């Protein structure tokens, strides 16, 4: 069970003077159950890449295999693929529309053609997974806070029971606690269900804290694909492509330079605390 991108290229406006080569020879294997961070500056190809994962865009050349099958074969069931690879776009709360929270989350599974009972069971489970309490189920989604709305929108995708969940900047515009709450829920969800999570983010701190693997995109190509420790070691190169390392990495680098015996590759506060205590 995995998603494989094999020499994927994609151009916008091919055959015109304005052609843009948005993805260049991207090769990735996304196995089951990984928590992956996808980073890159604005325009680096992250969103184009993400839209290939469930067949919204078709590669100009190259192929994408889901569980061994080419998703662009003419007999391939794309509708099924879209329920298996769930995409949560930026500001997903703008897509809420139903008269109450529960109905909104039912919309996806209902459209898969499931029976009402199954639809409702899934909606209930999905709302629980994102931490929305029963008391909100029959409220209008528009009366909720920003963070709650966003969690309802994520539940709408979870109710389709995806095997891969892709979240495009799920914390943009949320206050720090709201940010932590959503990411904690997602981490817990991943632990409990073994779902693969791909987190597209501009926050290096968040990525360092939650994911086990980082894919760095630059100008349509994969620049790095490694653990956070390894990727953030390249903080100078990351800066050159519009990114950065978490502040902690810079602190550890500065301390190491001063002669303190700390691991300069620590990327989270928890690691840094232990390292500094050891060195003092």
């Amino acid at each position, binding site marked *: 069970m995995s998603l494989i991108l094999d020499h994927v290229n994609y151009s916008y406006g091919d055959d015109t003077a304005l052609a843009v080569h948005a993805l260049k020879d991207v090769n990735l294997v996304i196995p089951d159950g990984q928590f992956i961070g996808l980073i*890159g*500056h*604005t*325009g680096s190809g992250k969103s184009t890449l993400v839209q290939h994962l469930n067949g919204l865009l078709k590669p100009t050349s190259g192929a994408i295999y889901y569980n061994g099958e080419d998703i662009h074969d003419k007999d391939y069931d794309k509708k099924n693929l879209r329920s298996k690879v769930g995409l949560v776009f930026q500001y997903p709360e703008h897509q809420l529309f139903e008269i109450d929270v529960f109905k909104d989350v039912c919309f996806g599974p209902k459209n898969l053609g499931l029976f009402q009972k199954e639809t409702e069971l899934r909606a209930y489970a999905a709302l629980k997974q994102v931490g929305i309490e029963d008391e909100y189920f029959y409220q209008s989604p528009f009366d909720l*806070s*920003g*963070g709650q709305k966003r969690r309802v929108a994520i539940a709408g995708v979870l109710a389709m029971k995806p095997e891969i969940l892709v979240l495009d900047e799920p914390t*943009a*515009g*949320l*206050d*720090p*606690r*709201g*940010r932590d709450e959503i990411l904690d829920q997602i981490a817990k969800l991943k632990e409990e269900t073994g779902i693969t999570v791909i987190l597209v983010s*501009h926050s*290096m*701190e968040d990525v360092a804290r939650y994911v086990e693997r980082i894919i760095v995109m630059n100008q349509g190509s994969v620049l790095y694909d490694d653990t956070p420790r390894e990727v953030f070691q390249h903080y100078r190169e990351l*800066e050159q492509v*519009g*990114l*950065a390392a*978490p*502040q*902690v990495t*810079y*602190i550890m680098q*500065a*301390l190491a330079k*001063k*002669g*303190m015996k700390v691991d300069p590759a620590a990327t989270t*506060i928890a690691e*840094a*605390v232990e390292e*500094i*205590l050891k*060195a*003092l």
Partner: protein
Amino acid sequence: MGIIKTDKLTFEYIRRDEEGNVEGITRAVDEVDLDVKQGDFIAILGHNGSGKSTLAKHINAILYPTEGTVWVDGMDTQDENHLWDIRSEAGMVFQNPDNQIIGQVVEEDVGFGPENMGVPTKEIWERVEESLKAVGMYEYRKHSPNKLSGGQKQRVSIAGVIAMHPKCIILDEPTAMLDPNGRKEVIRAVRALNDVEGITVVLITHYMEEIIHADMVYVMDKGRIAMEGTPREIFSRVEELQDLRLDVPQVTLLAYELKQRGVNLPDGILTIEELVAALSGLKGA
């Protein structure tokens, strides 16, 4: 009186159900007193729904107080005769750059504000030039805004505000949608406006490390000002901030956690240099 002053500023709105019946009244801003000196850099923090954007919208007369008064450069925002003066003296920049850019070419977009104020053509071009230079976007003046990165677009939005020669500029989460580089560019441009041009800045943000250089920080909760002080004073109160759904910069948090574990460090460390100096001092001792 400072450039921005509020006296018991209160803003209420009426909640209605689907039939239009009154369900209740929400007090989004509750008796806020502010006094901002010309040339200050102030930051407003607060969780989602704490009232900070509602407060900001009073400063350039997008909203009017239910009770209390707001003065911008001595002008009462409820006085309709001053409306246009207030809007040109207090410029606003919002979160999403795509909603704020209307021109087909960068320099046209920046000229839109002064043109609407009836500034003579020759002076419009002078203002466009100086504004774009102030945010470091002059070399992009002939570009289409569509082709710019988020940080560049946001700097063009800021230039559009500066071209109106405001005395203060209010930025409501200007970096929320940007990548790390875009955030850096925008904050650098905003700080330069404040340092070099002396423009008063009111910055609303959820990124704590953006405001460590502010003169004053106000933290809002339930429409009130819950905490106020210098960044050092505010960020020394880690637990209170966390209770208000906020955060401190990573370096401050690291110092705090080390302190909890018995390391002798001062409160409110704000920069990497401070932490490194404090720690190497300990090591030497």
